[in-house]
């Protein structure tokens, strides 16, 4: 069972490595969206500092939406998804591995690059830690919850927009807590309350989402 997880994660990372443009696009999207805000709302430093957590979090959310569709679509098109459903490992474990791989490819780079964007927004360096930690806890939840939407909209016409419509409302609590933690820290208050809630969401999503993704995939594969 663990071998299947290792195998799938390694496979998806290898595929991402051979198709760097896919990974690059999502990351570039994140950077560009976050860079558009100062142009749109003006470069007043106080204003930028105030909106930075929200903007970076929204950009991260949109960027991981963008890459969600790829989680199962390609495997579905070439038939490998059926083989995974007929593999030796339970489908729940398989999709957990897929979500992990998605996060490693689409979520982790956002965590790494977020402090650079924070720099553009003149955010105090003392907040980089909280920002990165909140993204580290929050982005896996986006991959897990998003996986449910990706599985439900598999192969549908206009699935991309529908996927966002289904997943974004479910991700609102993550956004609120993620951006909230940075704001609390910026205000000099403890961010631990929000971070604990993010951790709770992560544990809950890690336990429940693979089951739901597997059920959704079975429905979509029929």
């Amino acid at each position: 069972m663990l071998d299947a997880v290792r195998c799938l994660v390694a496979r998806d990372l290898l595929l991402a490595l051979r198709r760097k443009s896919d990974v690059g696009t999502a990351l570039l999207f994140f950077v560009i969206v976050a860079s558009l805000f100062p142009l749109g709302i003006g470069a007043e430093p106080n204003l930028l500092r105030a909106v930075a957590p929200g903007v970076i979090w929204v950009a991260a959310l949109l960027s991981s939406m963008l890459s969600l569709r790829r989680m199962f679509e390609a495997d579905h098109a070439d038939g490998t998804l059926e083989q995974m459903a007929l593999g030796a490992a339970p489908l729940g474990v398989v999709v957990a591995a897929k979500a992990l791989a998605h996060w490693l490819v689409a979520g982790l780079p956002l965590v790494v690059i977020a402090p650079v964007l924070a720099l553009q927004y003149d955010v105090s360096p003392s907040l980089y830690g909280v920002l990165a930690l909140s993204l580290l806890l929050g982005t896996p939840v986006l991959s897990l919850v998003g996986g449910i939407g990706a599985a439900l909209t598999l192969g549908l016409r206009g699935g991309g927009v529908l996927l966002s419509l289904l997943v974004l409302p479910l991700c609102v609590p993550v956004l609120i807590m993620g951006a909230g933690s940075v704001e609390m820290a910026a205000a000099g208050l403890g961010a631990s309350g929000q971070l604990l809630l993010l951790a709770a969401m992560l544990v809950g999503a890690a336990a429940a989402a693979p089951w739901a993704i597997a059920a959704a995939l079975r429905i979509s594969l029929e």
Partner: protein
Amino acid sequence: MSARSIHWFWYASPQTFYPLAGAIGRLAAPAAAVLALVGLYIGLFVAPTDAQQGEAYRIIFIHVPAAWMSMFLYVVMAFWAAIGLAFNTRLSAMMARALAPTGALFTFIALWTGSLWGKPTWGTYWVWDARLTSELILLFLYLGFMALQASIDDTRRADRAGALLAIVGVVNVPIIYYSVQWWNTLHQGASVSLKSGSSMAPIMLWGMLVMALAFWMYSIAVAMARVRCIIRERGEA
């Protein structure tokens, strides 16, 4: 299979449920109209002015029952969806599909009347506090459910995919309900609760309960009409 169990599942089949749905609808629709008239009469003419809020409070006769129904209908919808998914019964999936638009309507009414109420009493149409935000998410969940079902051509897949989404979305309902207790929100607490009873004058409470009953009847009537349409659409009448 014993005779009893056959009888029990008799109405689980769309063909046999179709006439029953018609009969229920014919009873519920006039009941809804009568109750709504009575409720509005109590609310607008009989119930006294509120000590704090004056006349503005009268919107509770629409707002509170609509908000109750918005959450309740979601739970009912998710319940039918789960039954359909677990036992593969076609009728339950149709019920879930029939309830969604009504639920979305009540969610919208709750948000809309709430903002009309918020302006004179709180001083703002909208604040991003936990109760209001989570109710807005509920509206998005209803819309997502309907959009997902509309975009899948195969009815079986549409029913099952929608069911899964409805079940996942159920986590939001307790968040809405308890948000006013968990956070310091601007929204006031519940006026009516099972534990501590009601903190309203009896006639106001009566008006609200009659309106709630009217909304129930309306939901039943509309759901039955819609489920009949779905049964015919799928050629199972």
